[in-house]
């Protein structure tokens, strides 16, 4: 049966992909290629973290940048303050998770569009306040700069992309994920079969914001110098949102496909004047939202298996 055959095949290709990603720095010394791969992984991680709540949970969070920024800021301060980067990153992830619970609990009570607008307002408050409190650019000290190497950043990005994609894979199969899908479809009906809607949404919010913080932390470890307010910029919400929809919202592999496409097109088009890649992404995003809700993943699936079943917004459960 195709379904049974597809599971080991999928697992096999996933394992090959991870192995290739891990071995890449050993196989090549091409720094441009490595930075490119780093960006794909970083965007995959960030987009997937948005997808956990926005795609699987159906809650359009327009304040994702808040958690990316909190993770980035906490990690950067601790790391530059002398803490081992792993500890700093863990603290950044923890801070973003905690913030996710504190912010998620009230904002998830907002209905419909107010959740989207409310989260956007929170992220903007954090961005403006950070810009006021920490107006100076954060740069690496000369010593760190001399010792800077891309490889450890790259491996952390591999770790984040794999971890967060695994979380999505788990959501597509687990009991919690099934409950979350029910909540996304119809909260009242989900409650009526015993799924606590608020608990599920908050759980997904905490996961999503924690992973956004982890990604932000890696960005803070990677980037040589940036203004603290920059990590709270709305682009850290809007880019992952576009990537998720381009790749396939609510799918396990959509964010990876979308991120690769995003980074490649950015590379190709950034040779032109202005920011034409954003124009292309904006138009493609509109096409996807209006005409092709399955995104790239679904388009690929349709190409490979004509007549196959329609997009699983949440992957089907494993065969018994």
């Amino acid at each position, binding site marked *: 049966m195709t379904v049974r055959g597809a599971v080991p095949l999928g697992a096999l290709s996933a394992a090959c992909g991870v192995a290739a990603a891990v071995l890449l720095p050993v196989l090549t010394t091409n720094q441009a290629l490595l930075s490119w791969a780093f960006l794909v992984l970083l965007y995959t991680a960030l987009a997937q973290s948005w997808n956990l709540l926005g795609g699987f949970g159906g809650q359009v969070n327009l304040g994702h940048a808040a958690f990316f920024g909190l993770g980035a800021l906490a990690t950067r301060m601790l790391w530059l303050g002398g803490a081992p980067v792993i500890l700093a990153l863990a603290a950044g992830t923890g801070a973003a998770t905690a913030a996710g619970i504190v912010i998620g609990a009230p904002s998830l009570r907002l209905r419909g569009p107010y959740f*989207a607008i409310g989260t956007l*307002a929170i992220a903007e408050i954090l961005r403006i306040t950070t810009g006021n409190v920490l107006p100076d650019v954060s740069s690496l000290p000369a010593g760190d700069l001399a010792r800077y190497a891309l490889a450890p950043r790259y491996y952390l990005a591999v770790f984040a992309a794999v971890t967060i994609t695994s979380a999505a894979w788990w959501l597509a199969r687990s009991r919690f994920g099934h409950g979350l899908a029910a909540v996304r479809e119809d909260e009242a009906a989900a409650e009526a079969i015993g799924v606590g809607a608020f608990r599920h949404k908050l759980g997904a919010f905490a996961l999503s914001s924690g992973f956004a913080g982890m990604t932000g932390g890696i960005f803070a470890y990677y980037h040589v110098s940036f203004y603290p307010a920059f990590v709270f910029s709305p682009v850290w919400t809007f880019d992952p949102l576009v990537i998720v929809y381009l790749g396939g919202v609510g799918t396990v592999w959509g964010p990876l496909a979308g991120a690769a496409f995003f980074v490649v097109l950015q590379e190709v088009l950034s040779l032109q004047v202005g920011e034409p890649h954003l124009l292309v992404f904006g138009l493609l995003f509109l096409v996807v939202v209006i005409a092709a809700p399955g995104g790239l993943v679904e388009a690929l699936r349709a190409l490979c298996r004509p007549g196959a079943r329609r997009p699983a917004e949440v992957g089907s459960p494993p065969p018994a």
Partner: protein
Amino acid sequence: MTVLWQNVVFGALIGGLYGLAAVGLSLVFGVLNMLNVAHGELLMLGGYAAFWLFTLFGVDPFVSILPSAAALFVVGLVLYRVLFERLASAPGETKLKNSILIGFGVSLVLQTLALIAWTADERAVTTAAAGAVLPLGGAVVPVVRLGALIVAFLALGGLHLFLRRARFGRAIRATADDPGAASLVGIPVGTVFAVAFGLGSALAGVAGALVSTTDAVSPAIGLSWTLKALIVVVLGGVGHVFGTFVAGVLLGVAESVSGFFLGNAYREVMGLVLFLVVLSVRPQGLFARE
């Protein structure tokens, strides 16, 4: 004390523009149950229209209001027909969510187009009257800002009369109340939707032209204006033209007074906090009609 008073005056002046920006958004929301988050980008386009008419042909922005509104009406109509119309029959929650997503895509496209066409430079119109001020109880009132406030007020008055008195205006209000019933009594609901969207955009065009006289216009101003409009709509409720205007003035005053006490850098934070407080008291939003 004078400085505080000056802040209040300035806040009220800019707040009139917030109100005008919000009324367009609120009209679309009230009639179509769609949230056009590209509203700020439409305003930005209106600002550029006035800027170029002034720079190329020397047209005063207060005159450019009309061509700017007309152009934005057409832009709105096209956007509605091409993108938003397909949502018109979707159930409420889906319609809102998808309108946000489509609006987001539109804002990305418009912002990038503006960036490619006109660069990221901040533009402003400096007319002959730019430096003139009037005294008001110890504070000064820049003539241009006062003019913008008056025009905003007049535009809203015109809209109010149109919605109350004109046949088509009444059709719009009837459709906002109950599209099904409106269509049963022979109102062309599809046309009403399109015109309401166009009208909302035209109001953004008016607001944009006025903004060009007092503030900077650049491709990036959209998001901040959309947020302002959203805050005002949540504070003022939907369906009351003058209520929205008053809420806009209040937001302007609240911002500049908090800027006075907390430092200018925090003036925007105040509006956002106010917004969150209102939302947390009424999670369904003040949008909700009884």
